């Protein structure tokens, strides 16, 4: 870095992503609180550990192969082109460690690549990684109290380190084939995180089946209420906090919009924040839309659920998710109205699917993330019809059919189908669901017995002292 201004841009960008990572950690804290609150007392610790261990498992696998997938799979591969070389993103790359950006040792790297990625690679990697945790956490809540932790962790790696990052390569990068050919637009990840995770959760749930006692003999669903509404709602509040980091991480903080090969405009510079597609946007604009869509979601959910706290909070989240695909461009009142509409639909759909197909989605994840994300992408296709999907020449424009195809790919092709197939395999091997007796008495039965023995020993010791 040769002068103060270029150093400032690079180090600001590095710091910017680092801050988003810290914020996004709150999402995982929130999901843990939320899930433990939603589960019954006798399965608390296993529920907590199930979600906690998502962190290391996806981190390690994301380091090993997911970061490379993001850059290598932008053409499919073999949909519109071959694998793309990504020497900065392989687990054996020197740029996947502390690096000052000087002369590279490895022959696969050149000086420009090294100088560019040395300071950005780790924080950019981590920002995407935190999205991966979120994708797996969304699924985690839906399957509580009956999935084997071992099976969930295999599925978590599949959604967090494989499926979602393929969809990011395809539809959430500046040169992904879906952006180029379909004009796919999903600025704040309605589809690429939420629809895919919701679709994935549905695929698992279909094979896993409901919790024992959820449905009566005639198929009528029973309410299995959260043991702690406080933990559930504070957890969701925490997810809102993390969502700020998520939104900000979806942007590139400062870039010359007329630079590189983008608009091919010579002798002109315009520095701005951009979305992931390198289209200019502002933090101010997305802040307006985030809060207005949150408000629309909360108000609609309060109305439709008649003030139910769980659904009101979830509706706030679903509102943001429903508007996220186009929240870089919507007017704030449009964002609010879209959020309200989406929340009413997904609330109705959740209960309709539960009754009709006997799907026991313990936290409403399929509705809040899956249906809301799917609808959000489809609505953005209509609302932003005719907008350029990219600053690059030759890319398709945004259309309803392009975004609809994208929503189907996210929810169905990369979400539902891999989850269904993987769950079927795990189920056939007897590895998917915990034994029936253990589910009935609770996963923490061994811990409860140990606690009883510990308490008895302490009582005996106190008696001897007395």
């Amino acid at each position, binding site marked *: 870095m040769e002068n103060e201004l270029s150093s400032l841009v690079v180090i600001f960008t590095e710091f910017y992503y680092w801050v988003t990572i810290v914020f996004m950690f709150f999402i995982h804290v929130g999901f843990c609180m939320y899930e433990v609150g939603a589960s019954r007392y006798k399965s608390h610790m296993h529920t907590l550990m199930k979600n906690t261990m998502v962190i290391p498992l996806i981190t390690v696998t994301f380091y090993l192969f997911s970061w490379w997938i993001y850059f290598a799979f932008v053409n499919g591969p073999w949909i519109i082109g071959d694998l793309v070389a990504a020497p900065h993103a392989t687990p*054996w790359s020197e740029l996947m460690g502390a690096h000052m950006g*000087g002369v590279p040792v490895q022959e696969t790297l050149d000086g420009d690549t090294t100088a560019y990625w040395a300071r950005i690679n780790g924080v950019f990697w981590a920002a995407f990684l935190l999205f991966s945790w979120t994708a797996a956490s969304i699924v985690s809540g839906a399957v509580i109290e009956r999935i084997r932790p071992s099976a969930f962790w295999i599925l978590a790696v599949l959604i967090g380190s494989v499926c979602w990052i393929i969809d990011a390569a395809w539809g959430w990068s500046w040169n992904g084939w879906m952006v180029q050919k379909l004009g796919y637009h999903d600025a704040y990840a309605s589809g690429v995180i939420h629809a895919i995770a919701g679709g994935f959760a549905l695929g698992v749930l279909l094979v896993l089946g409901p919790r024992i006692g959820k449905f009566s003999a005639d198929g009528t669903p029973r309410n299995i209420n959260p043991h702690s509404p406080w933990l559930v709602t504070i957890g969701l509040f925490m997810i809102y906090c993390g969502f700020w980091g998520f939104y900000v991480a979806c942007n590139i903080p400062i870039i010359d919009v007329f630079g590189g090969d983008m608009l091919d405009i010579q002798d002109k510079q315009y520095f701005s924040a951009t979305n992931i597609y390198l289209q200019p946007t502002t933090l101010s604009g997305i802040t307006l839309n985030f809060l207005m869509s949150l408000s629309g979601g909360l108000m609609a959910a309060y109305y439709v659920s008649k003030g139910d706290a769980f659904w009101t909070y979830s509706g706030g989240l679903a509102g943001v998710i429903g508007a996220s695909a186009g929240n870089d461009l919507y007017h704030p009142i449009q964002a609010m109205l879209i959020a309200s509409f989406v929340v009413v639909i997904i609330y109705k759909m959740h209960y309709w699917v539960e009754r009709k197909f006997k799907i026991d989605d313990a936290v409403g994840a399929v509705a809040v993330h899956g249906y809301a994300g799917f609808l959000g992408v489809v609505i953005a296709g209509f609302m932003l019809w005719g907008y350029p999907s990219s600053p690059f020449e030759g890319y398709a424009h945004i259309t309803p059919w392009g975004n609809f195809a994208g929503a189907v790919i996210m929810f169905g092709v990369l979400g539902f189908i891999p989850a269904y197939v993987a769950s079927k395999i795990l189920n056939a091997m007897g590895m998917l669901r915990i034994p029936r007796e*253990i589910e009935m008495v609770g996963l923490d039965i061994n811990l409860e017995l140990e606690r009883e023995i510990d308490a008895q020993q302490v009582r005996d010791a106190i008696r001897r002292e007395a």
Partner: protein
Amino acid sequence: MATGMVDTWANSDVLGPIYPFVGMEGILAFVCIAFWLTWHIWQIRSENREFREDLEKIRQRGGVGRILDDESTLAQEEDSIQD
């Protein structure tokens, strides 16, 4: 003896990787894969053992029905204490 490529910070502007044992990244990646997969295998075995022990404990305590009855009694006692 030096484990890394840094022998002075005077050339910070041209330094590349600053972690020790540069050149072993491939081996480290292999170790990481082995660590990850071994953990899954250990965890699945551990979980199977845990569930076998849980099922045995359930039988020792008189079966699922008995445990659920005990829980109900305990919950009623706690409720009456709170009242």
